[in-house]
């Protein structure tokens, strides 16, 4: 396979080719990645790093890369260029496993990085290499609503009201979708509900979801461009982009509580050792914890780790929101994946046709937009 990387911008075109790529990945999958074309040749300066990341961080890493390159050259005298690759987090993880030569991965969810570790490319202790379990910034799931909040949606319980239609991507195919699902579940638990209550609440939400897009940005287009739905569940930084783009047509609502979105980062041990780029790769991720890195992260509406996080902009503050993490919702990610999103899990059960009802077959030509009308 031959990958070429541009310094920034879209590298993989999204859905159109994604399926073909995925199928190839499925076929070649675990057959073991080769050692690469040029062995362990000593890396000549200047150093080149490849950061394999997910969709919404495109703008963030463009800024980080520029700042880090300057910083690293000043500090060590070695020029460094960073190339980025962005696509859906899960398929990026597969690409690295299948041989994409990433120096660092900065992915959306813990399972995506853990999958790379399981393939042997990362050492098992990757989580302990950086502060906060290698999570340099976090986000929260918030609501985006139409201007003036006409449906008066202020907190989670408002989502399960007659006439509310919700937009969120398919949690089986989207990390953004997974987090929205977990946020709703956790919100029900945090409000004092039982597991049963949580399941009822989450089922109600998906019954009010007329479209299940396969990715986060597709869901954004459905909500903002096509005007479908009353509320869009998404990450805080994505919500800011969406609202800015709408030029006053949309606004953000912060629920009282939400899930903390923790995207981890890791140096891909095998690749950096082979390419002799470990020093720069480690410094690159370390830069995310530096004052300069934290300020850039904050300016993209991601919440940097550490005490007194810098504000998104001068004079702004981070809106207060109570957060819970994956541990509160499901114990850990493995458990969450199995219980909620695995084959036959909670999410599948929501769509299981009721035994007493005929399943709606493809013969019905009308989309059933539940709760939408």
């Amino acid at each position: 396979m031959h990958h070429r990387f541009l310094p920034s911008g879209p590298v993989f075109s999204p859905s159109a080719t994604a399926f073909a790529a995925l199928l190839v990945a499925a076929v070649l999958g675990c057959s073991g990645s080769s050692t690469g074309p040029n062995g362990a040749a000593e890396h000549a300066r200047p150093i080149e790093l490849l950061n394999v990341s997910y969709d919404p961080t495109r703008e963030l890493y463009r800024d980080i890369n520029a700042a880090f390159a300057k910083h690293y050259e000043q500090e060590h005298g070695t020029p460094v260029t960073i190339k980025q690759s962005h696509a859906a987090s899960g398929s990026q993880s597969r690409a690295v496993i299948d041989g994409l030569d990433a120096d660092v991965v900065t992915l959306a969810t813990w399972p995506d990085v853990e999958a790379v570790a399981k393939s042997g490319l990362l050492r098992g202790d990757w989580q302990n290499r950086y502060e906060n379990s290698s999570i340099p910034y976090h986000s929260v799931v918030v609501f985006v609503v139409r201007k003036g909040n006409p449906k008066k949606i202020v907190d989670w319980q408002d989502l399960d009201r007659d006439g509310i239609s919700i937009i969120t991507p398919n949690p089986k195919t989207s990390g953004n979708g997974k987090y929205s699902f977990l946020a709703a579940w956790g919100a029900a638990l945090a409000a004092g509900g039982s597991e049963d209550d949580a399941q009822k609440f989450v089922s109600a939400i998906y019954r009010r979801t007329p479209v299940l897009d396969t990715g986060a940005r597709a869901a954004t287009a459905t909500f903002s461009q096509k005007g479908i739905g009353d509320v869009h569940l998404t990450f805080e930084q994505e919500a800011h982009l969406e609202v800015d783009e709408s030029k006053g047509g949309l606004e953000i609502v912060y629920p009282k509580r939400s899930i903390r979105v923790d995207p981890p980062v890791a140096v891909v041990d095998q690749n950096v050792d082979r390419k002799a780029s470990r020093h720069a790769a480690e410094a690159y991720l370390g830069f995310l914890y530096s004052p300069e890195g934290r300020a850039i992260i904050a300016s993209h509406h991601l919440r940097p780790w550490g005490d007194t996080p810098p504000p998104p902009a001068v004079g702004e503050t981070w809106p207060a929101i109570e957060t819970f993490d994956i541990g509160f919702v499901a114990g850990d990610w493995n458990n969450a994946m199995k219980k909620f999103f695995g084959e036959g899990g909670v999410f599948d059960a929501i769509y299981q046709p009721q035994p007493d009802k005929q399943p709606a077959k493809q013969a019905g030509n009308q989309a059933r937009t539940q709760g939408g009308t």
Partner: protein
Amino acid sequence: MNMPTPARQTARRRSVLPGFGMSAAITTLMITAMVIIPLAVLGLRAASLGPTEFLAAAWTPRARAAYAVSLGASLTAAIVSSVCGLLVAWVLVRINFPGRRLLDSLVDVPLALPTAVAGLVYSTLYVERGWLGRFLVPMGVQAAYSWLGIVLVLVFVSLPFTIRVVQPVLESLDRDTEEASRMLGASRRQTFLRVILPAIFPAVITGFALALARALGEYGAVVFISGNMPFKTEIAPVLIVSRLEEFAYAEATAIAVVLLVMSITLLVIVNGLQQRVARNAQ
């Protein structure tokens, strides 16, 4: 008897077409590398599951519903595409009107356009707020996020095939036979049904097969307009992607294998049909 016989020469005589050995080698290599090896790996992958696991992965109620959506929508789209393609080809070949050349070149646009864009544009047009949706939705026609929408985009991506296959056959059709048919007293209808249709029908069926194959494999256009609701508008490839998201490679491959077997069966049937029609037409 003493004529010099060409027999010895024939043994060494080379085909009239030059470069047979080379082209056969290239053909074999291409087909092996591009088609046979990937398919074999697909089969091997799926075979890493036992029969029960295979069934558990590929034959769930949800997967069956997805196959039904994929096959049903693709068949419908291929039929619509064949009928419309025949009409368009007819107009382009038989009727001379200003802008014909332009129209003719527009036929190929769906081949060049990334299909994801087509899916996005279609769904934007047909939602309640869209240019077409604002008229259609009040009339009860929900084309975005529905089975109808899937058929619409599949017709879009498959139409060039049906047009382009029928067009040359129509062009080569001898007008004399039609005139003879009319002179001998056949009605227009009879002329079409008895003279023209038998000549072009094999091409129509070939177009149908190509359209069907194209539609079954489409992913990008469909995910943007189908809404992906399980049991209703979820196509099989979306299921494959969700299994890959769980890093369940073998299970994903199992679904792919079932889909592949279904499409190959369909294509074999269509091919058989086409051969029979072609034989009858002679």
